[in-house]
């Protein structure tokens, strides 16, 4: 992307970030030679967050970013590829179509995967395919998730949020915020949006729970995703025959096949169930751990919009992305060879001091715009505007309703989703003073 944006001589100053090198793909011959001589040993991906720092990426990532924001990395299957930790280089990789998202070209950066590349994406999984297949799906879906459309859901989100806060008040204190609030609010929204009938929701939730279970292995998670897809598949004929006012019914009027509809529906459900839920759970934990920030949000609910962006940046729950080079690419003075897997550490990129001053501080007053929490490039999160509406409503409502909200257990006893694709908490026991 950057190479298409550097045409200052024509008077066109195309969009670029002030903190980014002006041309990341410029051949820097001397530098390349120098760096090749001093090429560091491949590292492995740091996975362990420091004890007592549930919101921070593994500490080694900051060191690696400081040394070299793009560096060789050894994958668990022996493959030697790359690790990106800087904001500018991560953004450039995500935006560059020379880097593929096709699963069958990617090596898993964490242990537990196959020896060699991953299996190809199941039908409807938008994250594991490239243009033109990806473009076709994205074009059919983008209109369903526009800023305008999602804002129209605000009132419904407010109602669902209020209902769950009422139930929390009746039930507690103490309650598990994940069970009572963080999980069900976005789950109900995505089920309503897609058009999952009330009677089917329990089954959907069960499969979804398996997707985020601490005990589920890769195979069980794949099985749960398959089951979720099958559930949607069973809905498709009914939606074709008797369309209702929902996304799945809308999509039956396109040229998508039943298999594609089931796959896309399962993908959207999984994406909608496991992401915002973890932002709400971990975000609440973060705000309770930074009482002055929670107080700022309580004092000024108008802070919600930028508070959400800062929480997205600070927490970066979708912490790691993977791409594979389709051809040789020179980037940041390094030569990435065709076939190399490149892991991008979104959590490290969002803590890059070159982009965000004092990056390890949670500061709701900060303009966190430009964070990469939703990714960047053609695969940037399809549901991000829904997630924004949900979080902009849910955080101020929760902290407004319970002015004395606090953890009911010591912070070190909150069970973290360690080593999972999406970071978060499994439970968040909270309490408050009853009036």
């Amino acid at each position, binding site marked *: *992307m950057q190479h*298409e*944006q550097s045409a*200052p001589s024509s*008077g*066109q*100053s*195309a*969009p*670029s*970030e*002030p903190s980014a090198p002006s041309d990341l793909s410029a051949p820097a011959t001397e530098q390349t030679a120098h760096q090749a001589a001093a090429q560091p040993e491949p590292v492995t991906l740091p996975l362990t967050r420091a004890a007592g720092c549930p919101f921070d990426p593994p500490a080694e990532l900051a060191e690696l970013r400081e040394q070299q924001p793009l560096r060789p990395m050894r994958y668990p299957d022996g493959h030697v590829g790359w690790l990106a930790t800087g904001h500018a280089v991560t953004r450039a990789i*995500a*935006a560059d179509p020379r880097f593929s998202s096709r699963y069958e070209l990617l090596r898993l950066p964490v242990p537990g995967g196959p020896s060699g590349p991953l299996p190809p994406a199941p039908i409807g999984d938008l994250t594991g395919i490239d243009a033109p297949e990806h*473009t076709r799906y*994205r*074009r059919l*879906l*983008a*209109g*369903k*998730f*526009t*800023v*305008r*459309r999602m804002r129209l859901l605000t009132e419904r989100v407010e109602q669902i949020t209020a209902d769950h806060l009422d139930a929390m008040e009746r039930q507690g204190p103490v309650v598990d915020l994940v069970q009572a609030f963080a999980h069900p609010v976005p789950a109900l929204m995505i089920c309503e949006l897609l058009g999952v009938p009330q009677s089917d929701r329990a089954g959907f939730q069960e499969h979804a729970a398996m997707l985020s279970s601490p005990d589920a292995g890769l195979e069980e998670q794949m099985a749960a995703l398959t089951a979720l897809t099958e559930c949607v598949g069973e809905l498709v004929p009914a939606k074709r025959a008797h369309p209702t006012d929902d996304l799945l019914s809308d999509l039956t009027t396109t040229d998508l096949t039943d298999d594609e509809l089931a796959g896309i529906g399962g993908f959207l459900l999984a994406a909608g169930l496991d992401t915002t839920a973890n932002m709400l759970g971990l975000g609440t934990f973060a705000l309770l751990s930074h009482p002055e920030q929670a107080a700022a949000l309580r004092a000024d609910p108008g802070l919600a919009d930028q508070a959400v962006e800062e929480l997205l940046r600070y927490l970066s729950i979708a912490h790691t992305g993977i791409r594979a080079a389709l051809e040789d690419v020179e980037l940041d003075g390094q030569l990435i060879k065709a076939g190399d897997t490149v892991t991008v550490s979104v959590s490290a990129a969002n803590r890059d001091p070159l982009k965000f001053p004092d990056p390890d501080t949670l500061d709701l007053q900060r303009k966190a*715009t*430009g964070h990469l929490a*939703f*990714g*960047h*490039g*053609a695969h*940037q*999160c*399809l549901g*991000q*505007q829904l997630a*924004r509406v949900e979080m902009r409503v849910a955080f101020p409502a929760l902290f407004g309703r319970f002015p004395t909200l606090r953890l009911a257990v010591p912070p070190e006893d909150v069970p973290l989703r360690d080593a999972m694709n999406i970071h978060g908490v499994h439970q968040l026991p909270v309490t408050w003073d009853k009036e």
Partner: protein
Amino acid sequence: MHLSIDRDRCIGAGMCALTAPEVFDQDAEDGLVVLRTAEPPPGLRAGARLAAGLCPAAAFTVIEQEGAGSSPPGEQ
């Protein structure tokens, strides 16, 4: 300032409509960008520049007019 869009690149993420709703909108059907004005007045230019810089698909070209051509768009 003159803005132009490349709808072939646009992925409908909505970053522009979110950031500078006075300048950018999304088509109700396909979600792709719609320019509300190609020549934003001075008060909207900073927002337009910011939004263009945030586009995940680099779907915008920002042409600054005479005298302002050297100021790079950014996220300020």
